[in-house]
């Protein structure tokens, strides 16, 4: 087991490094730089003044040099300062990371609470009307755009019923965005649960368990659920990554002050240090969660431990 963990940690570190380098290169392919973006609203700098600004920001250096400098800084823990506000990038990110995480985890919780039972019900009623109904809900969940669902929830629960605020922070404000994310991603979990359970329920050991005369709920909850969990946990990492990505839009709809909105703003402003900082944090959190899930996977499935 320690060997698996060590290997996973190393892979994770290398992945993050690769992302930093790639992001550093790709960012320069996006047309428009921070100085152009700055000039877009008020035209009051001469081309010479703009060139001066570029050179002070180091934007006139070759791309490889800018990337190498950035990687060296990040390795030493320095994420730089934003170009627009001249604030430390790490500080801005750290301030918002908890918000983003809380929302992602709340969304995931809602998705699990709705998705797993739905998948369970569908698997048990395989081929029947209930199955079809559940899977239709699942397809609907995948198909409905998050921002639209968010706006509908705002209309009903904030504008009309006044139950929750339209925008803001705090526990009352998190309910609608968490519901939106949860409803959008529960479908994925429901499908996964269903297919995992359907497969397991046809296994010989389930037949054996039933033949032994075990009660049905024991068969389902003990013998079928645990192996099914392995598949669900696997997909969880994927869902989390989707969630972090999808959350950028939901944060915008609900004015949730997470790193996603910071990133959108930074991209419009071409604030390179901020964009790179976001990519590093975003990639790292997805990599870390995937790694944790891999490790959890090993704990859940004894066969994995034996393999190594």
């Amino acid at each position, binding site marked *: 087991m320690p060997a698996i963990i060590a290997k996973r940690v190393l892979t994770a570190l290398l992945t993050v490094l690769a992302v930093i380098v790639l992001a550093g290169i790709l960012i320069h392919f996006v047309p428009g730089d921070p100085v152009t973006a700055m000039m877009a609203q008020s*035209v009051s700098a001469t081309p010479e003044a703009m060139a001066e600004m570029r050179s002070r920001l180091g934007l006139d250096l070759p791309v490889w040099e800018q990337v190498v400098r950035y990687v060296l800084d990040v390795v030493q823990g320095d994420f730089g300062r934003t170009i627009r506000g*001249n604030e430390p990038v790490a500080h801005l990110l750290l301030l918002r990371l908890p918000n983003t995480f809380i929302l992602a985890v709340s969304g995931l919780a809602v998705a699990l609470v709705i998705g797993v039972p739905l998948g369970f019900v569908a698997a048990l009623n395989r081929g029947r009307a209930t199955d079809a109904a559940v899977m239709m809900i699942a397809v609907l969940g995948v198909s409905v755009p998050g921002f639209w669902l968010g706006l509908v929830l705002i209309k009903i629960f904030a504008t009309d019923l006044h139950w929750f605020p*339209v925008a803001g922070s705090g526990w009352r404000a998190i309910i609608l965005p968490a519901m939106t994310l949860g409803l959008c991603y529960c479908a994925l979990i429901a499908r996964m649960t269903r297919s995992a359970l359907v497969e397991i329920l046809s296994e010989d050991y389930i037949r054996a368990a039933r033949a032994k005369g075990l009660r049905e709920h024991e068969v389902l909850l003990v013998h079928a659920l645990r192996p099914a969990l392995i598949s669900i946990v696997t997909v969880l990492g994927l869902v989390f990554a989707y969630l972090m990505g999808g959350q950028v839009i939901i944060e915008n709809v609900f004015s949730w002050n997470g790193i996603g909105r910071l990133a959108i703003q930074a991209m419009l402003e071409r604030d390179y240090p901020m964009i790179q900082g976001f990519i590093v944090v975003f990639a790292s959190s997805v990599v870390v969660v995937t790694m944790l899930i891999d490790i959890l996977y090993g704990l859940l499935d004894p066969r994995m431990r034996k393999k190594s």
Partner: protein
Amino acid sequence: MGHEKATDLCGLKPDIVVTKEKGNIMACINRYLKTTFRALALGGSIVITGAAAASELTVARAVDADSLDPHKASTTQSLQGTSAIFDTLLTMGADGSIHPGLASAWEVSQDGLTYTFTIRDGIKCHDGTTFDAAAAKASFDRALDPTTLNPNVSAWGPIKSTEANGNHVVVKLSERYGPFTSFLTSIQAGFICPASVADKEFKPIGTGPFKLESWVRNDRIVLTANDAYVNQNPLVENPGRPYIDKVTLKVIPEAVARMAALRAGEVDIVEPSLEEAADLKQDSAYKVYSADLSGQQVLAAFTGRIPPLDNPEIRKAIGMAMNKQAYADIAFEGLVSTANCTVAPNLFGIDQGLCAKWGVHYDPEAAKAIMAKAGYTPEHPLKVDLLVHKLPGWDQMHQIMQQDLAAIGVEADIQTREVAAFFDFMTQTNLKTDIKPAVWTMGMSGVDPDYMYFLWKRPGFVNMGINEQLDQILTEQRALTGEARAKKIQEGDRYLLENAYAVPLLSPGWNWLMASSAKIEGFKLGWMVSLIFNDVRVSD
């Protein structure tokens, strides 16, 4: 007894409740739920009345400030924040006239190279210190320092030296700079107090009507009234401290959510969506504000080095096809006006009547005839790109424009880019001479017609400079003042319009609308869409 105990258990030891009889538990849960719902309902009503409280105001905008440092800020949203916190040396009336600000008086030397500003006595910074000539000098110097990375550095002018002398600040220029005093009134020229830069991190400490209480980036800027404020701005009636105590500039990125927050009473003033602003205007429960003093101008321009757009007749024909009244009425829901000059109305020296004589007029038939003479018909059209960037109202305008052009035999292929990418692309495109010709649109804003200089003095903004003759006019106007400068600016406008290098379309064009509930009184939009809260009162 049992009843009381149940309450205790309910609140403190829920694990023991299990041993109680069922009826008690249900009563307990019911009571708990009732209390919770009451608390929730109360919470809800607090949110609603909170917005109505006389001394607080919540404003929802789409985007947060990028900086509250007036020497670094570039976006309208940032400058709206800095203009509440910082004052300017001079101020501007609605007619473009210059008035005192932090400076009670100013003098210009005979040669136009030395400006002496008298700093008003008794101005207090938000930290209690006095704003004096030394502070003003320090603020000048910081704005001009290349390490500040001030995006407006060129607009401050060719300043050679600054000096504090008693209560005077003496500014020496290396050459005459006519726009100097008007620039000093603009929200891009806020004056900071020395405490702002005392530490490594910038702190927004100014002399303006509001102090910064807190700023959570991308969430809210909280401003509190400055009790020591004495107003100089001619656009403000209230002579002293703002009537309201607190202003919160909240960020709600989604237009639909912003409007929902206004309707739910969570916020008092919002940046509305264009579509909803038109509806709100009909609704007596709301007010819609449009910035008359935006200083914004929307233009169409050409890649004039690429044939056949190097021919002024073709450019004129394209200008004549553009139905700007339709753009204003349909695309912009009648919330903007058409404009005739290359510079926004109300700015120094700008005369809409004269511009109307010089520029082209909507006349699709005549335009069609010119194009036909040049060999282009709707059947064999001139193919151009219509290069644009995304903004509310502009998208619809470009669609109507595309139809307008098609009618005279110009087939325009709309290419939309996001703003930074667009200006980057235009910088490349304007240098080329051998690609598909393009018509493009842009907007610009300022408090002085000198922005013509930044746009068209070669190489010009995104390389849109034109020729020696125009360079000379634009450079000369900077060295003049008063009537002579106004004449020179008009000469530049005339040259651009008669040769159809630009087709003026509308004013204003972006971020210019605000809406509030009807109970808000005295809210105003100032120059360059600054938000003026000094006169705001909330009625019941």
